[in-house]
């Protein structure tokens, strides 16, 4: 997704001369196309994320549109208060770009897993949060930032093969649906949509019809789309490479409580600090019940328990 991000950013940079790219000394073999095309608009700030966001704030107040790039954990958390008191408070078009959602940096270990960035970012009322699920969505998301007057957080993934059936669809404030089954909704964050689509296929083999919903934008969140979907199904699973609290699962529960109280929600995500669990992202999905097979299993279990009091959840 990095290359597509940069490709789209160069495109946006051609149209809008206010666009700058800042990096906290990360993005080797990725950011060069922008740096080479616009050498005067590219700044390696150094390993100093707070300063990067502070500098971006000063630049944005003067009329620039800075994209501030780092690994998602550093971009979001080290600089969090600077984001809050800077671009959010001042309503400035700073774009925080966090690379490596969820377990993307697998072998790098816990310090590099962005498992709470979405929770932190989406509670800032005026901060647009975009979490594209594949490369085509990532390009669309970068272009869509031109419609956002205030600040934004882009949560990008490293590996981002196309989600089957998504066809690059992306719209601010909308969820993108794949399929139209009414037995269960599989609501996925980012690249987990791929597992969700595979899980839907496994469920279809058991005559369970699923709808996959890909949620790629928060603030604006797809409240209407999710509300409508949750009213159509008795059960929804939220799927995210993120802690259970505060992220997509919490959003789905909020919408269910307010718009579709008849729908049961099972949150699938990371429920404990992953200590000493480095490895490939897939191995971490397995550990945390986020593979297609375990998702399908959780859905079937949830359907079997419908109508009974339950403490279901992963």
């Amino acid at each position: 997704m990095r290359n597509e991000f940069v490709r789209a950013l160069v495109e946006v940079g051609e149209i809008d001369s206010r666009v700058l790219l800042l990096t906290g000394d990360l993005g080797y073999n990725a950011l060069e196309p922008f740096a080479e095309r616009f050498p005067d608009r590219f700044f390696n700030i150094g390993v100093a994320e707070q300063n990067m966001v502070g500098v971006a704030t000063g630049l944005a107040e003067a009329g620039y549109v800075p994209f501030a790039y780092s690994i998602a954990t550093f971009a979001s958390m080290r600089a969090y208060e600077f984001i809050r008191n800077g671009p959010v408070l001042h309503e400035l078009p700073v774009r925080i770009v966090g690379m490596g959602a969820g377990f993307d940096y697998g072998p790098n270990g816990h310090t590099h897993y962005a498992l709470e960035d979405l929770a932190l970012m989406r509670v800032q009322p005026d901060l647009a949060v975009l979490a594209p699920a594949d490369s085509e969505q990532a390009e669309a998301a970068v272009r869509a930032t031109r419609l956002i007057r205030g600040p934004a957080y882009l949560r990008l993934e490293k590996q981002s093969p196309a989600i089957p059936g998504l066809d690059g669809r992306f719209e601010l404030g909308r969820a993108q649906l794949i399929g139209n089954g009414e037995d269960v909704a599989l609501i996925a964050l980012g690249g987990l949509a791929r597992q969700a689509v595979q899980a839907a296929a496994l469920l279809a083999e058991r005559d369970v019809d699923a709808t996959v919903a890909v949620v790629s934008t928060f603030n604006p969140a797809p409240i209407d789309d999710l509300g409508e979907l949750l009213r159509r199904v008795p059960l929804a699973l939220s799927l995210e490479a993120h802690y259970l609290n505060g992220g997509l699962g919490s959003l789905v529960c909020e919408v269910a409580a307010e718009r579709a109280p008849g729908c049961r929600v099972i949150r699938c995500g990371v429920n404990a600090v992953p200590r000493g669990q480095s490895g490939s992202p897939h191995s971490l999905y397995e550990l945390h019940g986020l593979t297609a097979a375990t998702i399908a299993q959780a859905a079937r279990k949830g359907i079997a328990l419908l109508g009974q009091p339950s403490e279901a959840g992963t």
Partner: protein
Amino acid sequence: MRVGSDDNGRKPTNSRSVRVHRSSTGSTAPDARELAHRIRRGVIEQSKRANVGHIGSSLSITDIIAALFAGPLRAALPTDPDRDRFILSKGHAALALYAALHEAGRLTDQDLSSFCSDHSALGAHPEHVVEGVDFSTGSLGHGLSIGAGAALAARLQGSQRTVFVLVSDAECNEGSLWEAVMFAAHHKLSNLVAVVDVNGQQALGYTRDVLNLDPLAARWGAFGWDVHEVDGHDVDIMSTTLADLRRDEGQPHVLLAATTFGKGVSYMESQIKWHYMPMSDEEYAGALQELEAARR
């Protein structure tokens, strides 16, 4: 380290030089001195009306604010995108800024008298929604980064505007401040001017006891800044020093302004309790009396 002797000497070429500006004859900036008096009076009156603290911090920076607002910031129109920028990074001293904006006609009597009232935009820390406040502050260690970005923007835009950032000495405890210090020096942001209010105090004690900053001038100098040591209550010397800062040497500038916490009200001076305490009626009367006596 080279220690200069006056503010009119040639610019030293050693990037780690520090220039010490001796006391002035007090003749160059009568407007600034009168402005300082009025700001001080506003600080005392409004803190009493609102019954709030942070008085000592506001009095500490009053003469610095006066030198800036009677000098380089005098012409800054809030609606002009090419105006000089000012960031009060030590936001807890906002009352001195409000009083200066009031004197500059940016805030009405009614505005100023809403300080710390319900539904007022004039809180104990400044917000950019107030005309004349360029950036909201209140969390220490943030303002200099913003200032560095603002200075970089000015350069990119080919503007001659200057960015002034007033930080506290205790704020130099914050690691993020030094990130900005490094960045500004690396990018040769000579349109960036930091003023450090060196009053030697912080919330719970004296800086030398809490987290020693010495040698502060050497530290800023070692980071590549053009360092000036000034008396933070001598508006004349600060005005001259600010006016003489050069743009062609490729260094950001810092004035280490030696100040007395609570300056102008004897019972507050250098007293830790006046970081937070409001005044009693007797203390208020005494403070006003002292300010008027000093004016004559």
